[in-house]
């Protein structure tokens, strides 16, 4: 049974219609990416899911509960990380996390705090006030606040926006680890490369879902241009974006007929920079 079910969801702010009839569902235990440019309605959708805003039309069920009417039952089961840090800057990381932990009546809070501080690699700075933290560290404190009560589902609004490549990679390691523990993650992002890291992706534009699929299937909707240069002759051919299509195309240039699929896995600029940073850190 889906953990999120949305049908015909609409939300209007004055003259602006932020959500224009959104339908989709999310299965348990997956990393679900909500991808779209700024202003697409991603934050509005997440706020509707956590019960922070009341839609104008449509239905939302989260764990088969209504986020507005069943909010008190639902809030124990979800963790929410807003787009802004949403932390008390004068309090320490530990005090911030403990405040939200106490709100959920978290059992064995001190033990849980130590675990979560280790998990988010904040133990060394746990007692420092949050205003002394970098943007990336604040994101981790914010994530810890959302995780302290062991929710079944995490709703993260642009958790890696304005975060450096190293921390972004670590964050996705966190997310994958949490999904491995059976948690459902609903993550919004405007970074298209992050969509590839999700199990399923919904693309939102101007308040409407324009595609819902696995990242692989979405990639296959694209075309690959193969440019072959022989002597002074350059020929460009457009083929489907599948390893099989590339192998088929290369057969005419003498690729052995036994080869059924060819895939190029080129490092992105971000992963190259990340690898350089990691090598430098190893040296230090």
């Amino acid at each position: 049974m889906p953990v999120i079910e949305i049908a015909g969801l609409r939300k209007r702010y004055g003259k602006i219609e932020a959500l224009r009839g959104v339908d989709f569902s999310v299965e348990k235990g997956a990393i679900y990416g909500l991808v779209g440019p700024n202003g697409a309605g991603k934050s509005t959708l997440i706020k509707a899911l956590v019960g922070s805003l009341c839609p104008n039309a449509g239905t939302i069920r989260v764990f088969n509960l209504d986020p507005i009417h069943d909010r008190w039952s639902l809030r124990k089961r979800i963790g929410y990380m807003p787009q802004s840090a949403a932390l008390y800057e004068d309090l320490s990381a530990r005090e911030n996390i403990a405040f939200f932990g106490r709100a959920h009546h978290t059992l064995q809070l001190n033990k849980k705090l130590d675990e979560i501080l280790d998990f988010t690699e904040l133990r060394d700075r746990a007692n420092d006030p949050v205003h002394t933290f970098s943007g990336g560290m604040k994101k981790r404190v914010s994530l810890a606040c959302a995780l302290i009560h062991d929710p079944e589902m995490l709703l993260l609004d642009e958790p890696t926006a304005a975060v450096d490549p190293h921390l972004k990679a670590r964050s996705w390691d966190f997310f994958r680890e949490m999904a491995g523990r059976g948690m459902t993650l609903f993550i919004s992002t405007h970074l298209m490369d992050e969509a590839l890291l999700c199990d399923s992706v919904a693309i939102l534009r101007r308040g409407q879902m324009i595609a819902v699929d696995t990242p692989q299937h979405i990639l296959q909707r694209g075309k690959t241009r193969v440019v072959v240069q022989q002597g002074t002759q350059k020929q460009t051919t457009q083929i489907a974006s599948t390893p099989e299509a590339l192998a088929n195309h290369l057969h005419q240039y003498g690729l052995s007929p036994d080869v059924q699929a060819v895939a190029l896995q080129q490092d992105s600029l971000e992963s190259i920079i990340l690898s350089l940073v990691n090598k430098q850190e190893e040296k230090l």
Partner: protein
Amino acid sequence: MTHTIIVAQKVVHQLRRDKRFLALSIVAPLIIIFFLKLFFDTMADGFPVERYVVPIAGFLVYFFAFLLCAMVLVQERSQGTLERMFVSGFHKRSIISGYVIGYLGLATLQAAVALGEALLLFHLDYSAQTILSLFLPIWLLAIDSVMLGILVSTFARSEAQVFPFIPLFILPSIFLSGLLIDNDRLPVWADWLGHIFPVYYAFDIIKGIVLRGEMFVDHWSNIAILVGYALVLLFLASATLKDVE
């Protein structure tokens, strides 16, 4: 109730951590009372200083308690922590009550320090019973002010939006309170308008104690109005604070 205590503890914790904010909250009224002393020292002999000093000290507490409480709650909204509190299971009643309890400590401290300085600087030689009688209306006024700050914060989306409420709610209250001129000399509508501000009733108690030697308990109707005012503001703040957009 547990959530109320959690919010109150958080507010007290924040105040203790932000020593600059705490110090300014206490020191700012003291500085103004000091300048008040310089001003009153220029007055001719026989000027009834005692008629003005304690009410003005009370008004300063009222002003600062309102401003600080409203600003901090608006900050909760603009930084996203208010939304996070709601999503974490805090009910709006718990948040408001937690803030009232947390800020009551600060307002009590402000009231005690401001009254203490006024008594010392102006050499007002009152009995302990009279001082307690003077403290209580200032303290009740501070509670009303915290409530008013919470109510106003529900209408403001940013810290800057709190400021227009000062000329709307705070400044007229002192002109219509009967302190600067007797309300009999005002148009009837202005006199009635003065009655909607809690400052009017707190000053009436203070004037009775200072000028006629009465005690706090002699003003039970004014006390009831100040307490009622706090309850009405608490109700209105609960009704206007939105937990869902």
